[in-house]
């Protein structure tokens, strides 16, 4: 197939995807055009809804996105934070330990299969 990208496991034709997306976007845009376009722009309805009050101009920090993760995986993050001591010798030790573990796993896997 022309322009079919194959990775050995998966395959994808981006051109067909783009063409199909273009057709569907046109169709959706066509449907959207049947909807009401107008609204009263000069009145209060165009301000953001905040239960009748003026919306606060508070910046919401990006790290808030991960609040749920920090809370749910609290114990995991505590372990990780304790590991991160800031000492280079500790990081090198972890690196060597990971390499050794990886080699052990690969060796066992090679022996079994």
């Amino acid at each position, binding site marked *: *197939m022309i322009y*079919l990208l194959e990775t050995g*496991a*998966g*395959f*994808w*034709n981006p051109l*067909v*995807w783009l*063409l*199909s*997306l273009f*057709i*569907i*976007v046109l*169709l*959706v*845009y066509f*449907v*959207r055009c*049947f*909807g*009401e*376009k*107008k*609204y*009263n*722009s000069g009145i209060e*309805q*165009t*301000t*953001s*809804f*905040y*239960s009748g009050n003026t*919306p*606060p101009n*508070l910046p*919401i920090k990006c790290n*808030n*996105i*991960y*609040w*749920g*993760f920090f*809370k*749910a*995986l609290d114990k995991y993050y505590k372990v990780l934070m304790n590991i991160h001591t800031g000492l280079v010798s500790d990081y090198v030790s972890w690196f060597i330990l990971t390499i050794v573990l990886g080699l052990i796993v690969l060796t066992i896997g090679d022996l079994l299969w």
Partner: protein
Amino acid sequence: MVEILWFKILLIPIVAIFGVCLGLFYKGIDRILVARMQSRMGPPITQPYRDFKKLMVKDNIIPVNSVKWLFNLMPIIALSTTLIILLYIPLGGVGPILGGHGDLILVLYLLIFPALASILGGFSSGSPYAIIGAQREMIVLMSYEFPLAVISISIAWLISSLNPGLNAFSFSVIGNNVIWGLVGPMGFVGLILLFLTLLFIVQGELGRAPFDVSEADTEIAGGVLAEYSGRNLALFYLANVTKMVVIGSLIIALFLPWNISNFLNLTGVLAYTSDLLFFLIKLFFVIFIGSTLIKAAAARFKIDQVVSVYWIYAVLISLFGLFLVSFDVIL
């Protein structure tokens, strides 16, 4: 080859309209069933069609402090990217229209787009409620992706380990190698665990209770959709109901790909019709168990509970399912 491609392209609008109409129909059934389970009468089955019609004639209000082009574009992207997934999944006994042009991995990636569109739409609206809703939507999105990937890879690994020459991510290969027949008792239990986990992911994908933290009407007034109205909201509404069909069809393609015409030895038009009807029945049961029943029975989770359920419990169950399947195959 080129003629076939053009014929497939001509079929795209038909499949898109079919998907939307089917989604609205199942939404009607879903609302009635939820109402009956809560001892209410519920709306008529045509209510979703009326809701869409009503939204299309309502004012399309655009907030003054929104990023207007992004605010207007995201509903179109959400619906378009939902509809395009339908082209890569088998529907009603017929192979995917674009089956030879994309596989399961592509579908998994495409499933992210509608959620991303609603996140960007929420951020672009400039509303405090919508921004909080968009952040929550992002958490839910990141949470269910991991177990979903584990399930998909489990199925592909199972097929590829038993049939090394086949492309295990192709839907036609998955459809021809029904996974339940490839494993022994231990693998069967593993597949049931994977299937149940996938049913639980439906709620997160659809943003419905108990995973509806991103909209949460009683807390954040609709969240990502708080500022949307009129035709923009109508498109998001269509995207949501179509996604129900998409997820249901994906589950059927992975776990329940049987066609009834094979059992009844039917051929021709009769075979296509019976397979389509059988597909619609399977879709109903998948949506009923995976969405309607859980929605009616469960209260909304807190945000950290959503992460715990998906990242800890769903991942552990799906990994255990994968372990049972792999152990079964190796033995």
